[in-house]
């Protein structure tokens, strides 16, 4: 396929198709290095802490948390929204960028989708623990029961959420797995040991790479991308409706759906940056995840960060302009009240910091991007904390006013969920191909360094002939 030679290459280092296979299979076939083991041990330690804190919650009840009658959603729902938002970037990269035929997605879509799956698993653990009786999760589903049957209330955004998150999780999972099948086949066909041949043989589902299968594969990818795009937008829209359909000042806002979706993509891309900057270093994939890829993602962070900034300011303006005194009080209280420091952190991290990405040298600076991606994720966590806690702690009646501080169990579950996430991601990086090599090989003839050089030389010889 023709591509302008002046466009920067997406694969560096004159890689042939065979070298791509070698480079991407190396981390799976070799032994894990000591960085991987250190990260893995730390993650599993955090995961064990999560098991302890969740056991305490399940055994003793959610009274072990800091939430109370006034502030009845605290870190649990903050963490749920944070995690589910992070997941959105994976789907955006693999589905929306596929529909827009953006080739730079090819080096990053696999790990971004893995991030989606693990982030949604983390989000789901908060849904399960916050219901208080996690052994009754099927009460969220419309199943016949001995109470009537008393069905779930389909007018409730919390029921929409059950449908949205479960559909999103399962569809993302099959989308990711279908893409993995041809790459598992690559590992299977290269396997030296019997164990690897056996396991990757099962994982690859007997993939052959026939043109009929590729034809179906491409159609399935395209249609799944087409369905995942409205799906991913619906998920955070519905999450925002958990708040927006209530009458609480600070929650009752029509701006919420687009503002939440933009925020989700913003935080998700930040998490992709955090993960990929580590992955490219540890697995030596700098030729595939280049500064161009980092630059592209930073541009999306800049755009979505600006949307989020405008949303904050609009919200504040409308609170005053509407003339509703409860709404005005809520926003003044957010900025200057008991939780002013959370609001200040949110504004600094989410509105001011991404604006630095207007500068190209910062956008292409790996260390700076890494630091800023963490800053953005902290900011997005505070955004959810501000929305949830600052609105709840000052409701309509002064008799419903109170404060909230998390208990160590709540903080432990959050830190533990990071352990769960990183344990899953490290296992993924160890046993699964982290780059969609079968898809990446489609651009070696158009977007690799050797292809660019050939196109330029061809252009020059063409010019001298005339």
């Amino acid at each position, binding site marked *: 396929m023709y591509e302008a030679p002046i466009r920067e290459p997406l694969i560096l280092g004159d890689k042939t198709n*065979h070298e791509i296979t070698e480079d991407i299979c190396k981390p799976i076939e070799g032994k894990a290095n000591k960085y991987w083991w250190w990260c893995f041990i730390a993650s599993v330690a955090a995961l064990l802490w999560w098991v302890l804190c969740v056991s305490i919650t399940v055994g003793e009840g959610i009274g072990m948390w800091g939430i109370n009658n006034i502030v009845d959603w605290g870190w649990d729902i903050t963490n749920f929204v944070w995690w589910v938002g992070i997941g959105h970037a994976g789907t955006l990269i693999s589905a929306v960028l596929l529909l827009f035929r953006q080739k730079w997605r090819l080096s990053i879509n696999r790990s971004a989708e893995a991030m989606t799956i693990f982030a949604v698993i983390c989000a789901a653990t908060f849904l399960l623990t916050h219901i208080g009786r996690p052994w009754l999760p099927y009460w969220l589903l419309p199943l016949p029961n001995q109470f009537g049957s008393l069905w779930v209330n*389909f007018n409730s955004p919390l029921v929409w959420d059950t449908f949205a998150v479960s559909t999103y999780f399962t569809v993302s999972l*099959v989308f990711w797995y279908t893409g993995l099948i*041809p790459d598992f086949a*690559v590992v299977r066909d290269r396997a030296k040991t019997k164990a690897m041949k056996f396991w990757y043989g099962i994982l690859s*589902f007997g*993939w052959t790479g026939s043109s*009929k299968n590729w034809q179906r594969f491409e*159609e399935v990818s395209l249609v799944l991308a087409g369905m995942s795009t409205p799906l991913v937008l619906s998920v955070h829209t519905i999450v925002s409706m958990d708040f927006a359909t209530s009458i609480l000042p600070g929650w009752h806002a029509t701006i919420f759906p687009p503002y939440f979706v933009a925020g989700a993509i913003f935080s998700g891309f930040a998490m992709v940056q955090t993960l990929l900057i580590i992955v490219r270093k540890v697995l030596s994939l700098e030729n595939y995840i280049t500064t161009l890829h980092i630059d592209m993602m930073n541009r999306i962070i800049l755009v979505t960060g600006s949307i989020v900034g405008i949303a904050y300011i609009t919200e504040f303006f409308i609170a005053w302009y509407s003339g509703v005194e409860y709404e005005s009080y809520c926003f003044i209280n957010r900025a200057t009240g008991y939780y002013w420091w959370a609001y200040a952190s949110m504004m600094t991290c989410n509105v001011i910091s991404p604006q630095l990405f207007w500068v190209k040298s910062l956008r292409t600076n790996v260390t700076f991007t890494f630091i800023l991606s963490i800053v953005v994720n902290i900011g997005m966590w505070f955004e959810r904390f501000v929305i949830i806690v600052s609105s709840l702690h000052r409701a309509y009646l002064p008799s419903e006013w109170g404060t909230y501080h998390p208990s160590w169990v709540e903080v432990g579950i959050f830190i533990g969920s990071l352990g769960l996430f990183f344990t899953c991601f490290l296992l993924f990086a160890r046993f699964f191909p982290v780059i969609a090599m079968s898809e990446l090989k489609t651009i070696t003839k158009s977007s690799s360094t050797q292809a660019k050089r050939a196109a330029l030389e061809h252009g020059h010889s063409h010019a001298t002939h005339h």
Partner: protein
Amino acid sequence: MSKYIFAVYNDEDVLMQNIKPLRSHGVRIKEVYSPFPVHGMDHAIGHKRTRISICAFIYGIIGCCLALIMTNYMMITDWPMDIGGKPSFAFYKNLPAFVPVIFESTIFCAAHGMVITFYLRSKTLPGVTAFVPDTRVTDDKFIMQVECNDHAKRAELTSLLMKHGAEEVKDYGK
């Protein structure tokens, strides 16, 4: 003795260019195996367009209908709910609140139905033994599966394939 022989190519463009000339010599190409999807290959060797997206559409309609029936039965017929003194005893009045659930069910059925159909039709399931003419086909080689029923003509067919860009011609296996 296999009914097929396999021509190995290094380059997808070379393989593609030689499909037409080979066919005009009466060579019957059964299938082409490649490490990545080659644009236009399915059409070149005469595969019909896949109908899997039509299946997805039908599954989506089924999912949508199931959700319509479910919400109507549960919320309107079986146990109408009076919420905040605002009962919705007519389906069309309550429908806007059901849209998210109906939408999610539509996507759920369409996506999973399509993927299951894809796995079944392509015979890609856990435990299936792969048909791999050469293990390099998942790495960087492109392999043309050619019908060769008459063993006597094998040498002739081989030289024809070699003349048309093939790097080697071989039987099934490593």
